[in-house]
C-alpha cells in the first residue's frame, strides 16, 4: 500500500489513490497470452467519483470559456489521465498514464458521466503506458515506453483483472533499449485506414547530437513508425519530428495529421508549435535542422537542411505544447466543426508568462489543408499564471460530444453542445 498524505491541501488528492493489493508479477503477461488466470484478486479498487476533489474540479470548470451553446462538465476523476481510447461499443473509455497504470472508465447508465473508474489489467506491470488506441473491430492497442500490447475484446474482458493480452512489439524492441529515456517517451498510437498500427516515437533530447542521427533515422526515433497489427513489416512512416504526442487520420482523405512539440531555450516567443500533415510515407518534417516552423536550431545552424522538408500546416503558439488531437466526425456540434481538428494544448512549462492549457480548433479547406485555427476552450490558466488544469488529449463519444483529459487535475471533462 502506497499512501503519502502530504499536507492538508492534498488530502483530497491522496484519497483517490487506491490501495494497491499486490504488485503485478512478471510472467503474468505470458499466462494471459495463453488465456490462463494469474491469481490476481478479483476485486479491483475503484477511484471515488464524488467528494472534495470532484467538487474542486467542478468549481474550476465554472471558469472555462467556450463558444456560445457549448457546455463543459466533469466526466470522471482519473488520476494522471493522459491519452484516451473510446471503445467502439461505447461501453468503456481506456485512459493511459505516464506512470504505471491504465484506467477503464465506464458510463453504465449512459447519463454521460462516468460511474466507474478502475485499473485496467492490474495483473500486468506497465512502464509509461501512455498511448491507447482502438481498431474498428475492437482490439485495444497499448503503446508503452518500449513495448506494444494488444487486448482483443478489451471492452468485454476489462471487468476482470485477467484480460486476454498479447505482445505486438516485445519489451525492448520498439526502440533500442540503450536509447530509452524518461524524456519524451510518452507514445501515442492509431490504427490507420490501411489497418496498420502507427506509433509516435519522440526523441529524448531538446536537440539531439549529430552522432545520434543515423541510429534515430533507422529506428524512427524522432518520427512516426508503422507496422502490421502483428508488429511485422515495420517501417519509418515520417521522420524529422521532435516529439509528437498526438495524431489522427483525416477520415475524408486518409492523411495523417500530428502535433509536434518544439525546441526549448530559444526565448519565450520562438519557435512556434506545430500541426503537421503527412499525406504519404517517407516525408521529412525538418527536425533537428528546424526547431519548429522555419526557425533554425542553434545546434544545426551551419548545416544544410534536407531539400525536401515539409513545413507545418499550422504554426501554433510557441511553447504551448500541443498534444492530443482528434478529427471531429460527430453530428452534435454545429456544421463549422464537422471534419475539423480539436487539439489539446498542455501549456508551457517554463515560459516567463505561461501560455496554453486550452483546447484549439482547426478547420480544413476543401483540398484537405488547414484553414483557420482558433481557441475553443480556455480558462485553466489563471490571470496570475497558475494552472488549474492541463489538457492532454481529445476523444469523441458516440453521441458526438468530446472528452478532454487532464493529467494535472487528474480528470476527464466532457464538452457538449445544446445550442443555449
Amino acid at each position: 500500500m502506497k499512501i503519502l498524505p502530504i499536507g492538508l491541501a492534498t488530502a483530497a488528492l491522496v484519497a483517490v489513490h487506491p490501495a494497491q493489493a499486490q504488485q503485478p508479477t512478471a510472467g503474468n503477461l505470458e499466462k494471459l497470452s495463453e488465456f490462463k488466470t494469474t491469481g490476481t484478486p478479483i476485486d479491483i479498487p475503484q477511484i471515488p467519483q464524488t467528494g472534495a476533489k470532484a467538487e474542486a474540479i467542478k468549481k474550476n470548470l465554472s471558469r472555462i470559456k467556450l463558444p456560445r451553446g457549448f457546455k463543459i462538465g466533469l466526466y470522471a476523476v482519473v488520476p494522471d489521465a493522459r491519452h484516451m481510447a473510446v471503445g467502439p461499443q461505447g461501453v468503456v473509455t481506456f485512459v493511459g498514464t505516464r506512470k504505471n497504470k491504465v484506467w477503464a472508465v465506464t458510463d453504465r447508465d449512459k447519463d454521460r458521466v462516468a460511474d466507474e473508474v478502475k485499473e485496467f489489467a492490474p495483473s500486468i506491470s506497465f512502464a509509461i503506458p501512455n498511448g491507447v488506441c482502438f481498431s474498428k473491430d475492437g482490439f485495444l492497442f497499448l503503446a508503452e515506453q518500449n513495448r506494444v500490447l494488444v487486448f482483443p475484446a478489451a471492452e468485454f474482458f476489462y471487468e476482470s483483472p485477467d484480460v486476454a493480452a498479447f505482445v505486438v512489439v516485445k519489451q525492448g524492441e520498439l526502440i533500442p533499449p540503450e536509447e530509452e529515456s524518461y524524456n519524451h517517451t510518452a507514445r501515442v498510437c492509431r490504427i490507420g485506414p490501411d489497418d496498420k498500427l502507427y506509433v509516435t516515437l519522440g526523441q529524448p533530447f531538446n536537440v539531439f547530437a549529430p552522432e545520434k542521427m543515423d541510429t534515430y533515422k533507422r529506428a524512427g526515433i524522432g518520427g512516426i513508425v508503422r507496422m502490421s497489427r502483428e508488429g511485422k513489416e515495420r517501417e519509418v512512416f515520417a521522420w524529422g519530428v521532435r516529439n509528437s504526442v498526438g495524431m489522427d487520420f483525416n477520415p475524408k482523405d486518409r492523411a495523417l495529421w500530428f502535433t509536434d512539440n518544439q525546441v526549448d531555450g530559444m526565448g519565450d516567443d520562438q519557435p512556434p508549435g506545430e500541426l503537421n500533415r503527412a499525406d504519404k510515407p517517407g516525408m521529412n518534417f525538418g527536425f533537428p535542422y528546424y526547431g519548429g516552423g522555419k526557425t533554425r536550431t542553434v545546434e544545426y545552424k551551419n548545416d544544410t537542411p534536407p531539400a525536401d522538408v515539409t513545413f507545418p500546416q499550422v504554426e501554433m503558439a510557441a511553447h504551448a505544447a500541443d498534444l492530443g488531437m482528434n478529427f471531429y466526425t460527430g453530428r452534435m456540434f454545429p456544421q463549422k466543426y464537422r471534419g475539423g481538428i480539436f487539439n489539446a494544448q498542455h501549456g508551457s512549462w517554463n515560459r516567463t508568462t505561461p501560455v496554453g492549457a486550452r483546447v484549439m480548433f482547426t478547420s480544413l479547406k476543401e483540398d484537405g489543408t488547414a484553414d483557420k485555427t482558433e481557441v475553443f476552450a480556455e480558462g485553466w490558466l489563471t490571470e496570475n499564471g497558475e494552472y488549474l488544469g492541463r489538457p492532454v488529449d481529445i476523444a469523441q463519444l458516440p453521441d458526438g460530444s468530446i472528452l478532454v483529459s487532464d493529467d494535472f487535475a487528474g480528470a476527464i471533462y466532457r464538452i457538449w453542445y445544446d445550442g443555449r
Partner: protein
Amino acid sequence: MMRRNSVPDAMRTGHTVALAIVLLALGCTSAGAAGDVAAGRRKALQCQTCHGLDGLSKLPEAPHLAGQPEPYLVKSLNDYRSGVRKHDMMTLVVQPLTDQDVADLAAYYAAIEVSVKPP
C-alpha cells in the same frame, strides 16, 4: 504563513537549534541573501508544471520539493547553474535565475509543511 514567523517556535526544540547551528557553521545557507517566501511563491510559477505550486510532483520525472531542506534546494539550483549537474529541463530553466531568485525559491519550497504516513 511566512516561514520566518514560524522559526522562533521551532527553535524551542534543542534539535532544531543544533541543526541550525550546524548548517550555519557549514555555510550551507545561501550566501548573503535571505529567501523571501512570498517572492518565492511568485517565482515558482515557472516550476509549477513539473514540481507543483504545492511542491508535489506533477510529472513522473520530477521530484517533490515540498518541505525539502532549504540548503539542499539552494545547492541543487546552484549546481545546475554552474553546470555541475546537468538535466535537459533544469539546465535550461535555471539560466535566468539570480542568487536572490534561488534563495526565494528555496525558501518557498522549504516552507511548505508536509506530513507523511509510511506504508
